[in-house]
């Protein structure tokens, strides 16, 4: 069929307005589909995180602003079997509700941040962060969204930090957070939470069973000052984002609707093309083109429109997602809108399949047309 590529391309160019409109429509549909896919993948990454990390939160509390655990619980937890490390974390956020611009401060011991996170500083220095009480390191996505640079002071509410570094992480959601010193955040005016933390992050040994370890922690602290609720980090984040999860779940219908519209658009364009060129296809068949040749020509046209439109949509989505560094968050947990190769591949394959589906009926119609009857249209 590659022999007929010039014919195919020239045909599309001849009807360039129609081609452009169809490609644009397909691009818009795939653009939205990519967004939906990216959000869903972001959520999936958050809720299916490594089970070897547990979050200890105050029982029956859901908002980080209302969870207050004794900081010294870390001593108790760290002595329990299967526990490798415990990081006490104070959380402060500018907005507990669902928002597209949540800023979350995680206050934690500086040396532990460096030890348990995979952060790579792209600007600034760890030394600067560790040596200044009001210093903070800021995730690249948040810095890019808010235009934050090293050396600046950055404020949200009563919290003002000096930016000592910008970091990237394998976990893109982390790039939406600000990490500062635990005691700095505890002492911030208006919080006054010395001795308490929002949560403890527990790192387990590889051999430890997460469910058993979580139950053991809750059991151990049951008699303590504050009752706890311990879950794996994935389960904890899923619970924090419960409301958003329902919305994101619904967004798949938006994705399906976009694909359906794309298929309808492509099929309509192809049917119009086939009807316009019924005589031309009859001429080709008179010259010796088989029904299979005509079927493939029409299918190739539809698939080409679909894939080109899809690629444009994917490229725009990747560009928009990577440039905007968008994320949505609730209860101090954020879902990063991070374009991935997986998303690109899925969307590209989807555009191919949509092209194939949309082209089948018009291609079959073109191929099966009676030559003699169709030739009358060519006169």
């Amino acid at each position, binding site marked *: 069929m590659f*022999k*007929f590529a*010039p*014919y195919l391309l*020239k*045909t599309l*160019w*001849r009807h360039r307005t129609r081609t452009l409109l169809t490609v644009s429509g397909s691009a818009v549909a795939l653009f939205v589909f990519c967004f939906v896919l990216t959000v869903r993948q972001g959520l999936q990454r958050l809720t299916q995180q490594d089970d070897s990390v547990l979050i200890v939160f105050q029982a029956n509390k859901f908002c980080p602003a209302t969870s207050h655990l004794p900081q010294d619980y870390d001593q108790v937890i760290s002595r329990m079997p299967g526990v490798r490390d415990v990081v006490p974390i104070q959380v402060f956020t500018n907005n507990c509700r669902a928002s597209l611009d949540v800023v979350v401060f995680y206050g934690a011991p500086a040396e532990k941040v460096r030890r348990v996170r995979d952060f790579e500083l792209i600007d600034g220095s760890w030394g600067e962060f560790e040596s200044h009480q009001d210093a903070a390191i800021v995730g690249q996505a948040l810095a890019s969204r808010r235009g934050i640079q090293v050396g600046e002071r950055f404020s949200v509410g009563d919290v003002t930090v000096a930016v000592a570094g910008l970091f990237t992480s394998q976990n893109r959601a982390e790039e939406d957070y600000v990490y500062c010193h635990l005691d700095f955040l505890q002492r911030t005016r208006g919080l006054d939470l010395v001795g308490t933390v929002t949560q403890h992050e527990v790192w387990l040994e590889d051999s430890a069973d997460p469910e058993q370890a979580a139950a053991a922690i809750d059991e151990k602290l049951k008699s303590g000052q504050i009752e706890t609720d311990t879950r794996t980090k994935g389960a904890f984040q899923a619970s924090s984002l419960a409301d958003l999860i329902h919305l994101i779940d619904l967004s798949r219908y938006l994705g399906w609707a976009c694909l359906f519209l794309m298929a309808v658009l492509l099929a309509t364009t192809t049917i119009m093309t086939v009807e316009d060129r019924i*005589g*031309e296809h009859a*001429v*080709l*068949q*008179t*010259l*010796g*083109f*088989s*029904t*299979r*040749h005509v079927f493939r020509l029409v299918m190739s046209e539809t698939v080409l429109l679909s894939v080109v439109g899809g690629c444009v949509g994917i490229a725009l989505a990747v560009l928009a997602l990577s440039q905007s560094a968008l994320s949505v968050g609730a209860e101090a947990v954020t879902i990063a809108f991070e374009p991935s190769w997986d998303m690109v591949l899925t969307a590209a394959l989807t555009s191919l399949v949509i092209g194939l589906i949309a082209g089948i009926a018009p291609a079959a119609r073109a191929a099966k047309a009676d*030559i*003699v009857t169709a*030739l009358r249209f*060519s*006169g």
Partner: protein
Amino acid sequence: MALIHVNQVTKQFRKGAETITPLKEAELQIERGQFVSLMGASGTGKSTLLNLIAGIDKPTSGRIIVDGTDITRLSRTKLAAWRARNIGYIFQTHNLIPVLTAYENIELPLMLLPMNRSERRRRVEVALTAVDLVDRANHYPRQLSGGQEQRVGIARAIVTDPTVVVADEPTGDLDTETSAQILELLERLNDELDTTLLMVTHDPDAAAIAERRLKLDHGRLIEHAQAAAPAVHAGAS
């Protein structure tokens, strides 16, 4: 044995409640290299017979054997492959592909045959030379006159060196002067390339250039007197 053997061919089709029979038990034999014209009033089945011999239509009954192949028994796919190898079709309205140049239009049927690009180029150049359009090779149909378009159509029909060239009213869309040029070209192709030509026309002057003239009347073929002007080829019946 004749190159084309039309044996007891009947073609019927339904038009509403009415059954129309443009061809009824037609019998025809055409020898290799013969130039045959087929005349008849509108609706008498001239084009139907042409289309049946070209393998783009199927008879209701009867057999059509072309160069030893019973084309009425071929499947749609095999018939398409057979057409690519054996039939050159000249249309009344030229029917060039508008997005392709003259060269590409002529090359199109060759793409269906097992042939490399250089062989295709050689054949297209020969065909362009035969119709005297070498200097118009890269022109699109919209940049050509009606006569030039028809000459491209003829080049496209002969480029595969087909067993039979069929022409359906090849001068029907052209003025008198251009018609004469096209007819002269067809006559020359028949003479020089020994191409077997079956031409449908309702123009007696056009029909007169053929060495053998047939007329369709009420679904039956009637042989006319031998044409006077053109050369008579060996093997004519």
